[in-house]
């Protein structure tokens, strides 16, 4: 978990930091996706808080919108996890292609 107080101003950075620590070494391949999505989540959360403070939405509406945002956040993380699996799959496929080319060229016919 990121340290320090979470404020409206640093909310996006804190969310991004939290994602970074939980993704560990897989973070590099999902960074480009997670950064703008964390910003979007932070903006939406701010909109809910401000709308509730101004009385533009009721307590029940705010509860639904927050529940909905939790689902949106987990969707972003699930997509990021899927993307790291795509990167791993691309690595495996690339390795397989190298082996295939090598074996076929040595044997002289397309065995693989």
């Amino acid at each position: 978990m990121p340290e320090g107080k979470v404020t409206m101003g640093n909310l996006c950075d804190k969310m991004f930091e939290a994602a970074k620590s939980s993704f560990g070494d897989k973070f590099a391949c999902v960074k480009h996706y997670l950064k703008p999505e964390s910003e979007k989540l932070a903006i939406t959360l701010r909109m809910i808080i401000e709308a509730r403070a101004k009385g533009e939405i009721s307590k029940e509406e705010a509860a639904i919108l927050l529940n909905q945002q939790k689902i949106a956040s987990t969707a972003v993380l699930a997509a990021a996890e899927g993307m790291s699996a795509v990167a791993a799959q691309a690595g495996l496929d690339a390795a397989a292609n190298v082996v295939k080319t090598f074996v076929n060229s040595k044997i002289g016919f397309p065995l693989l």
Partner: protein
Amino acid sequence: MRRKIVPKSRYMPFLGCVLLAFVLAGCGGIRIISDYDETTDKSLTAIQEQTDAFISALVKSSGTEDAAFEKNKAFYDRIDQQLRQLEFRVNSIPRNEQTIALVKKIRTVILGEGKCSGEGTSLRDLHCMSQNESKGPSATSLEICRRNINQTISAALSLELAKKQGLEKNK
């Protein structure tokens, strides 16, 4: 003449490499995630477009009887049907767990479980709750709801497009 005996330890790594080569390059290779699916991509895009258009129309009619839940029930029925078709599709693709989970989340944010209260999670819950049932949700809550829905659908679409890019890299 004495035959030279090659110790097992000398040829085992080579044998291991050959076996690994066959596993890596063998029929179909190792799959940890499904390939890109164009039908899933198109269905997700269609659901996003329809939901977005519906919310725009609801924002315009918010506060009037045209925005009443009963008058707009047809949209929820249509999306329910489209989501069921998409769920059937993604469930039939092997190694597609991430996309299956994402489609489930899309259902949760658009339709939910019909709780129609603060415990709800969806656009429908926001629309069918007692305070909004007759004249629709406010424009502000609809705009926030639209952002949540778009971000959830966009997550599923981004994953599908990442699969497509990953596939094209290794062609």
